């Protein structure tokens, strides 16, 4: 979760600064006497607390611990894992809800025990700045699990307790960098989504400005073309007058004197030259306008482009609780499994389909003892033997139904066929047919096979 909403108008900044200063002084901050302005208070506080080593509030929560390790948990008749009756603790309720969604569909489940463990994770706190024509900042905290390298935004850790400040729990440099990179990767995905809102707002402003600009340049273009149109009219009229004058000269009696209005009228070639020159000038203006418009558009785009910048401002080593659950499954085979529940992310770990790695909620136990999801569970179409996609030995080549080794029937066309007087035909890979398909389609094939054999 993000700490620090974008705009909170009800927030009393002055009061918050005063409270901060009061705490700073109470805890004996250095040079507290010189700290007066909000900036100075903030700056002073930034000098401390870069890293911490703490126990997650849930890890020190005794009610949670008691509820988690309580005895007498048995799966319900529908195969779901059930925790003891609701105790009102939100973390326990959440855990009960997650457990309630796990169903062992073809096996009896007996819980062998539960333990509460502590596991160290890394909390990275980033300050993120989004910049376009304005700036927005927020703090984003990401918790990274060193086992899975998965990162997740986390709520605040109010009530966390210090645990060992003596440096006994330092992190290895390589692991640390990997985890930091993983946090950065997560943050990038998160920011892309969060920045979308700002991008849309900036986009709206950009569009408004662009529309104004387009309108302006359209007007300028029209104004630039106006003299050209006027001139064209004038030249067209002059050209017509000149043509008329020549026509009169050719077909009529030559007038004694050149008519007044055609005097000084340009010849056709002169008109064309004038027109070309004018066109060139207008074209020049239009080109300049286009370049100018392009420059302004680029300027606007640069102004409204949203960029984000993240800086790591603090990090903490957080000892988080983890619930280890041990259960025994009895079904097509017997198997003891251990999985973990992560109360921070509110999900089970190590309980994923062993064929496709998808998180498991509805669980099937296959005959070879694998835990698989319904999509990967593939019982034999003939005898119903619990199989999964990893262990199914054969499939019907017609309907693709899974078949166990004993139920599969060879396709007559793929069996080596021996015809009298000839060598046996080369056999292809063995193909299987389920009972249903064999009854439905194998009769003609058998006849064909026999015919070929004869």
């Amino acid at each position, binding site marked *: 979760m993000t*700490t*620090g909403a*974008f*705009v*909170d108008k009800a927030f009393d*900044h002055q009061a918050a600064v005063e409270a*901060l200063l009061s*705490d700073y002084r109470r*805890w004996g901050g250095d040079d507290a006497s010189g700290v007066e*302005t*909000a*900036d100075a208070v*903030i700056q*002073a506080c*930034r000098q*401390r*607390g*870069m*890293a*911490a*080593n703490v126990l997650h509030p849930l890890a020190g929560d005794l009610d949670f611990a008691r509820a988690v390790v309580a005895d007498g948990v048995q799966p319900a008749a529908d195969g779901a894992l059930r925790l003891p009756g609701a105790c009102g603790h939100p973390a326990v309720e959440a855990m009960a809800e997650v457990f309630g969604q796990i169903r062992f569909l073809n096996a009896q489940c007996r819980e062998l025990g539960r333990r509460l463990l502590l596991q160290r994770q*890394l909390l990275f*706190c980033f300050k993120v*700045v989004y*910049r376009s*024509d*304005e700036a*927005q*900042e*927020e*703090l984003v905290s990401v918790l990274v699990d060193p086992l899975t390298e998965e990162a997740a935004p986390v709520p605040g850790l109010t009530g*966390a307790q210090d645990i*060992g*400040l*003596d440096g006994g*729990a*330092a992190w*290895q440099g390589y692991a*640390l960098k990997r985890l930091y990179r993983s946090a950065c990767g997560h943050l990038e995905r998160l*920011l892309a989504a969060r920045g979308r809102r700002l991008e849309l707002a900036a986009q709206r*402003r950009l569009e408004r400005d662009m529309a*104004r600009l387009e309108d302006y340049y359209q*007007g*300028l273009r029209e*104004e630039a073309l106006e003299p050209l149109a006027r001139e064209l009219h004038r030249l067209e009229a002059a050209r017509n007058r000149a043509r008329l004058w020549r026509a009169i000269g050719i077909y009529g009696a030559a007038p004694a004197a050149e008519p007044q209005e055609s005097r000084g009228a340009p010849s056709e070639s002169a008109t064309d030259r004038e027109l070309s020159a004018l066109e060139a000038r207008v074209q020049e203006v239009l080109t300049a306008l286009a370049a100018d418009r392009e420059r302004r558009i680029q*300027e606007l785009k*640069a102004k409204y*482009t*949203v*960029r*984000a*910048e*993240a*800086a*790591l*401002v*603090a*990090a*903490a*080593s957080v000892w988080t609780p983890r619930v280890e659950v041990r259960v025994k499954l009895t079904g097509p085979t017997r198997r003891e499994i251990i999985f973990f529940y992560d109360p921070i992310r509110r999900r089970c770990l190590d309980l994923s389909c062993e064929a496709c790695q998808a998180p498991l909620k509805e669980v099937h136990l296959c005959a070879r003892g694998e835990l698989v999801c319904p999509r990967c569970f593939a019982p034999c179409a003939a005898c119903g033997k619990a199989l999964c996609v990893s262990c199914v030995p054969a499939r019907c080549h017609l309907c693709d139904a899974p078949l166990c080794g004993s139920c599969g029937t060879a396709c007559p066309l793929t069996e080596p066929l021996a015809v009298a007087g000839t060598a046996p035909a080369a056999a292809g890979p063995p193909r299987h047919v389920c009972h249903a398909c064999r009854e439905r389609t194998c009769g003609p094939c058998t006849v064909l096979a026999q015919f070929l054999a004869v």
Partner: protein
Amino acid sequence: MEIAFRSEHEAVLDALAQGRFEPWRWFELRLRAERLGLTQGFERLLCLEGLRIELYDHQREAVLRVLRDMRGRALLADEVGLGKTIEAGVILKEYMLRGLARKALILAPASLLTQWQQELAEKLGIPARINRSADNWHRWDCVITSLDTARRAPHADRIREIPWDMVIVDEAHRLKNRHTVSWRFVDGLTKKYLLLLTATPIQNDLTELYNMFTLLKPGLLRTYSSFKREFMLDKRSAKDAGRLRERLSEVMVRSTRRDALLRLPRRLVETVPVPLSGPEEAFYRDVVAFARSLHQGGGAAGERVLPLILLLRELCSSPHAACRTLEVMACSDRLEPGEREWARTLAAQARAIAASARKLAAAESWIAAQAEPVLVFTEFRATQAALAERLSALGFIVTVFHGGLTREERSAAVDRFRQAGGVLISTEAGGEGQNLQFCRVVLNYDLPWNPMRVEQRIGRVHRLGQTRDVRIVNLITPGTIEEHVYRLLHEKICLFRQVIGDLDLILAEEPRLERTVGQLVLEAPDEEALLTGLAAVGRRFERARQRWEAIQRRNEEVLA
């Protein structure tokens, strides 16, 4: 969206790797502090907390409007004296604090460059540099220069190459004509934010308004033809003034004193004539004759103008001030032996009359009659020292303030004056940047020949925050150049009585009054010719002043 990670993570990761953990409460405190330091748009002004500057309500509103609604492109058109410069500085600082601006270009009139630099440095902590070299445009983040320098080769091309985050143009009425090099230059700059500062966007006609707004936001008033059709009745009157104002308000902030509920107290001007004694008058005449002789003597006369003008100004201040220059001249190789001897004689004359200078006595008796702190201004350190010595000997509490003091010494001097009262004797260094509103009496021991400097002196006490009427007392020596300069400033520009504001507009006719007066004195064959020359300067000032008043009225009509 482009996402960058800053490299400061190393320190944090190091702390983890070495197990340098701190108590959780400090960690939490740090995060709380970070959260409080977060920028949320432009809801609040960040720089006010860090710099302890105080803005008036109209300034705060203007800054927030520019940041929030106008997105950094605005015309700041507050009436004179309402603090446009500080508004622009705060806007720049806010953008800088939010990481939205780094490269800033400030284009101001040459006479205001230093003032800009000081205001930015002292009030806003922005290290701006005045640049006149072609090579430094890329080097510094915040550069101040004059429009005239910037638009010229080779600077113009260099400046145009840089994508500026913020461009500020002070006295932006210079961009009133879109066919000028200046307008085209500013228009051609690549810039994200643009602030134009002027109290009088309309100098002559509405076209100027169109040109300036097109610079800020092309298309806001559409094309010029549309603007003419829609908003211009004729060149000077608006057709649909209400709608025009509405349109302009998208990018213009204009506060008047009435809006801001700010009324500066009155300026009460007093003149204390201090006639010269016989020996003083003789000394005055001799020095003027000496200066004229050197100037008219040919040779290196052109080179001598400035030192001679300085000598004349010193002469008007005190024999102590003049004595130093005369002593230097007496040893100068650039003067003929006869001239050196003359200078030596004059220096001896100055020393002889220094102790009995009438101005010193007049100042002393006038100050003694005051019941409140007095701020005395003089142009010269020698005069300052003599006056300080004299007053101290008589038991006055005297504090001196000059450009040779360090920043700490300056603020200590001001604190002392604030707390102990008495007399603060300041040179021009005290005329800039110091706010001394707690005092309301200014004694001009001598008068700068530059009206800007006079205004700066008065501005130290006659400014926003001053609640009482301000007394401005000028010690004037009749029959000297000082009296002529005083008449020009007082009668033609009305400098002492009211805030003129756009002084540079009035002074455009006579941008270097100091030199003009000096040359008139040096070149005039007699007193009558001098008076005729000064009268001509006075008339030019009067016309400029009337023009300025007309401009004020025109702006009021369209924009108010």
